């Protein structure tokens, strides 16, 4: 008994001792996490040292994320200091103005030298009440670039912050009481494992001046992941709009109903069947209960992405796959105000939005000016300048070319068709949607002599029904270019596909990398899944123009195989969608043996080719 009491007393003592030990262990873990990520934190300056913000390296070859409002005043080249005290030259790669994100690339001091970098986390698992670590250079305290570390609580997740100024909008962001101040902009927010969960950039200040007021915001890393392809491809990325205005009204139950109060008739969402008064149930897989929820989801995606949307009309639920329209106004006047209102619906009565932090040393300004004059670099041009190429619509065209060349080179590994420039004949069977049985099919791409020059003709024969198109003949009606009817333009699509295979980018007057996009090939068994989300495959995109045809090509991000493409004549119409599968070798080159063709909401047909004759 005595022994037991003694033991009990001893164990009661153990409680606090254990607590202390655990606290020390947690502290050690925290310190270790900070030490691990510290070398990846970047101090960003304009050349010559003015201004200043923060960034974070995300790859060993020197790519770093920061805020758009940090690089806006620096111009396309800047200087970056790392925690080891070394200053590097850097160049702007890509930007997302609406989301306030920019990707820059640091140049190594020695060719091929590796940079330390932070690992991307999953911001969707972050919850209010979690701990977080922010790092950066507030008030430019550290002249040797050693980042300042602050530690605090996640105050809220999936927060929506209305646009400050005109376009800069924080959607689905992480709210923190972790102290961030001017100079922290563009810097990393880490979870306690040292994974990057967000980019700090904004705060709510109201009356308290532009310093930490206990309410800061970080752009969630999952949003940035959606734009990562665009950023790497040197694009000036645009966000999305739906083409419909939704509002939340209270029902008798007290719960809100989010429904469509206006809709643009040339929007994809309208063409897919959504209309006024339809209730929005879910958007991109997220349940929508208020306008803020809806805007959060919308802000996550780049223009042109397709996402599932579910709505209810009376008692019927319907899921559609919507192509998102652009959000950014095309041109801004001298004051940075939009000239063109664009399709973006006007926000409802707005609370005071959070605002971006100014750069330390800036004169206090009432609002972020949209057109800040880049600080004129002093001295000789930056060594990074040779990696910069200006082009309208791009942040840095140099990187777009780099990405395009990499993608096409990887694609050509599946088969080099450049020598096969003669007539092509494909034979097999087709199952048309309107028919129950399979028909025989023969597809010819031939070059016909017409006097001096030659012209291409595409011929399709399904059983005894012939179709033909001269894809470049002038004066053809759009309907003729979209033959056969209900395919949306299969003949043109076949022509363009052959061009890509034989001439690669040289065939197109315009050919640029379009970043990453989701692609939804129909299921192999032809069955409709419960949600189209199950069909999603992440792709790299190439956008091309040839004659009247605009084409978007989708390459697998895994092996750069072409999974399909879409052909359209103008932006606001349904394209002819071609899905390629069942790749098998033909004379040592991989070719898809199955072609599925969709148009608008319909399935045109599935082609299974068995014979390929590709002449030189």
């Amino acid at each position, binding site marked *: 008994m005595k022994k*037991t009491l003694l033991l009990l007393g001893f164990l009661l003592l153990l409680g606090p001792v254990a607590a202390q030990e655990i606290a020390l262990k947690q502290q050690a873990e925290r310190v270790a996490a900070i030490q691990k990520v510290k070398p990846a934190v970047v101090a960003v300056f304009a050349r010559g040292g003015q201004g200043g913000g923060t960034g974070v390296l995300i790859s060993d070859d020197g790519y770093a994320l920061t805020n758009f409002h940090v690089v806006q005043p620096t111009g396309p080249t800047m200087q970056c200091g790392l925690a080891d005290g070394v200053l590097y030259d850097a160049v702007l790669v890509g930007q997302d103005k609406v989301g306030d994100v920019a990707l820059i690339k640091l140049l190594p001091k020695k060719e091929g030298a590796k940079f330390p970098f932070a690992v991307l986390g999953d911001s969707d698992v972050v919850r209010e*009440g979690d701990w977080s670590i922010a790092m950066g250079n507030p008030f430019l305290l550290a002249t040797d670039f050693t980042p300042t570390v602050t530690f605090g609580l996640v105050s809220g997740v999936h*927060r929506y912050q209305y646009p400050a100024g005109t376009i800069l909008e924080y959607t689905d962001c992480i709210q923190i009481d972790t102290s961030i101040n001017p100079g922290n902009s563009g810097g990393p927010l880490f979870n306690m494992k040292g994974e990057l969960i967000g980019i700090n950039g904004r705060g709510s200040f109201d009356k308290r001046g532009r310093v930490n007021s206990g309410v800061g915001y970080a752009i969630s890393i999952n949003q940035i992941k959606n734009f990562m392809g665009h950023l790497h491809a040197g694009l000036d990325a645009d966000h999305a709009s739906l083409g419909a205005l939704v509002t939340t009204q209270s029902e008798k139950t007290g719960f*809100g109903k989010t429904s469509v109060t206006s809709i643009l008739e040339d929007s994809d969402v309208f063409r897919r069947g959504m209309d006024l008064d339809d209730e929005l149930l879910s958007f991109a897989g997220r349940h929508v*209960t208020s306008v803020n929820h809806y805007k959060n989801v919308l802000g996550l995606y780049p223009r042109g992405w397709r996402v599932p949307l579910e709505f209810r009309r009376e008692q019927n639920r319907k899921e559609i796959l919507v192509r998102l329209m652009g959000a950014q106004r095309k041109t801004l006047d001298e004051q940075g105000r939009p000239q063109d209102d664009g399709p973006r619906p006007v926000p409802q009565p707005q609370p005071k939005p959070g605002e971006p932090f100014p750069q330390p040393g800036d004169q206090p300004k009432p609002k972020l000016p949209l057109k800040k004059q880049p600080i004129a670099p002093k001295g000789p041009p930056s060594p990074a300048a040779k990696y910069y190429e200006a082009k309208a619509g791009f942040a840095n065209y140099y990187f777009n070319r780099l990405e395009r060349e990499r993608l096409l080179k990887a694609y050509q590994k599946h088969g080099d068709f450049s020598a096969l420039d003669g007539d092509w004949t494909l034979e097999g069977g087709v199952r048309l949607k309107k028919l129950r049985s399979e028909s025989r099919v023969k597809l010819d791409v031939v070059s016909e002599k017409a006097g001096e020059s030659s012209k291409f003709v595409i011929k399709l024969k399904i059983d005894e029904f012939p179709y033909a198109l001269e894809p470049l003949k002038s004066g053809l009606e759009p309907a003729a270019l979209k033959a056969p009817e209900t395919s949306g333009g299969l003949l043109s699509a076949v022509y363009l596909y052959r061009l890509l295979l034989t001439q690669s980018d040289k065939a197109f007057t315009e050919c640029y990398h379009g970043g990453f996009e989701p692609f939804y090939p129909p299921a192999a068994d032809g069955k409709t899944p419960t949600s189209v989300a199950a069909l999603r495959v992440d792709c790299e995109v190439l956008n091309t123009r040839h004659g009247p045809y605009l084409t978007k090509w989708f390459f697998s991000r895994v092996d750069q195989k072409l999974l399909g493409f879409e052909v359209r004549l103008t932006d606001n119409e349904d394209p002819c969608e071609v899905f390629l599968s069942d790749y098998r070798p033909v004379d040592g080159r991989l070719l898809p043996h199955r072609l599925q063709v969709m148009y608008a909401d319909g399935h045109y047909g599935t082609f299974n080719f068995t014979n390929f004759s590709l002449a030189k």
Partner: protein
Amino acid sequence: MRNRRFFVLALATLLASMATAHAQQSFTATANEVNKKMVKLFGAGGFKGLASYGTGIMVSPKGHILTCNNHILSSSDLRVHVYDGRFYRAKVIFREPELDVAVAKIDDDVDFLPHIDFEKEAARPLAEPGDWVLAMSNCFQIATRDEPMSVQRGVISAYAELRGRRGIFDAAFQGDVYFIDAIACNPGAAGGVLANRKGDLLGILGRELKNTLTDTWINYAIPIQAAVDLQREEKLEKVSMATFVREAIAGTYKQSEKRKKEDRGGYHGIVLVPNVIGATPPYIEEVVPGSPAAQAGLRPDDLIVYVDGEIIPSIKMFRELMRQVGPGAEVRMEVQRANRLHSVKLKLTEQPKVQASK
């Protein structure tokens, strides 16, 4: 014997696991629990830097909401968003300006809303300086509908009197409050929750408050144990916040008589040292520049001895006396400076207009 040993081991394991929970835990679960009992309020405001939104705490299943007695309640269209996104309209049923709280009731006839048992919470002892706290509110109107409140963490820095004075701070509540190091008293935060790490209610978050002399903002919460002396039917009665909440829910609360404006007296511009004990001597801490006291030549560290020939032993006595002297009146004072008595005359003025914080 064996069982006992087993019990001891189990106890030890339990203690160790409690220790784990205390170290650097996530507060997600606590925040979610508290959030269910909080509401977003939308009412009057939207001009002159006054927010049109605020925060409240559900104190009954029928939809009684405790909140700050501030401007947003001056609306005939007070709207409430409950944690699950439900929307209600509400009306203010009782206000207690001296406690700076009010109770509103949602219009619908319901009996199922998650709520805080206020009396039970108020029966707990006060928290202490150094205690770890969470502050939750809908500051900056970040959330609407079913979006959760913002949660911040901090420490109670002090438990001390909120020395609100016109022209310096405009604090409606005059009594001891928790001062916190979290920047919690932002627009819309008043009426929010100050809780301990377990989610127990400690206080009601205060208003935005700025010292116009030092240009600093303070962050405070009125403790739920707060009580004030009120003049009710010619009697001075001690009324606690718990009494107010209980009687407001029951519909029996008797409104105190309005504090008369002339009670505040004329303006002199003397700032005294903190009134820490019952009979703190009235030493001058500061003299507001340009004020009657400054014009009369009063200085910091002067000790007020007589006012109009009456001996003044304490700060409380000084304040009571000065409250009875209106603007325009002349007051004679004797103050002790070093070892000498100096005689001065103060001509009191109108209380300066409260400076709008911006």
